[in-house]
């Protein structure tokens, strides 16, 4: 089986990928109070998947990942617009954000801002865009 890179690389990526991916989620979730945010998290997830592409090669990764990331972009856009229209439906102006205080058992009192959903939308779009371009360019050379 022709292996694009060495076994060592594969083992290490299998170790590193979850860390990078979780870190990107961390960036996304912590985005509101300390450095992070949808855009940066999106890029970080893209970097994580690029690592997979590089190390395991296009065919391997395609078996696992969806054929095209356009769905992600669409989801992101609907989320972003959804938050905007949502606040409109509830009577406030377009895109006004409300603050809810949830009591999640494990984490205690968590403050969730409606703008966060918008941020997740941005996150999906950025991931979708970057990965589509990279997978397209990548597939080009196969």
């Amino acid at each position, binding site marked *: 089986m022709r292996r694009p*890179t*060495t076994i*060592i*690389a594969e083992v*290490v990526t299998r*170790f*590193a990928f979850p*860390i990078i991916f979780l870190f990107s989620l961390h960036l996304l979730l912590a985005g509101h109070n300390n450095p992070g945010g949808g855009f940066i998290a999106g890029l970080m997830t893209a970097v994580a998947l690029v690592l997979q592409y590089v190390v395991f090669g296009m065919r391997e990764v395609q078996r696992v990942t969806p054929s095209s990331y356009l769905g992600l972009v669409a989801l992101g856009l609907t989320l972003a617009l959804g938050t905007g229209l949502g606040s409109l439906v509830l009577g406030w102006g377009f895109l006004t954000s409300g603050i809810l205080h949830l009591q999640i058992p494990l984490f205690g009192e968590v403050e969730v801002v409606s703008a966060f959903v918008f941020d997740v939308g941005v996150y999906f779009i950025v991931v979708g865009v970057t990965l589509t371009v990279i997978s397209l360019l990548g597939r080009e050379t196969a």
Partner: protein
Amino acid sequence: MINLITGLLIGIGTFFIVVGSIGLIRFPDVLNRMHATTKTTTLGACSILLAATVKYGNSPIGLKSFLALWFLLITAPTGAHMIARAAYRVRVRLATDRMVADDLEGVAERFGYPPEQDQDQPI
């Protein structure tokens, strides 16, 4: 006490980083330089990370630096390994005159790698 350990670790870390970087400059060819730079990453940066972990303990900074410590410790050698492999396959000019033993003596010819190129080839 914590400060003493942190100070010590930072000292060690800085020492290795500086030495590694000097090595990067002075060594004749790629593989030697790589040997130096991996030291800066693993020993240098990681010991400073350890200092941070020690100093900040169970706070976000401490935990994150601990994670970074392990991440760096594992990924740095792999990176170096990949670079060395690639450099060898591309047959970058190595300082063969000072080479004591070449374990991969005939490998390059058998696998039909491109002939030895001088440094500034179009790659």
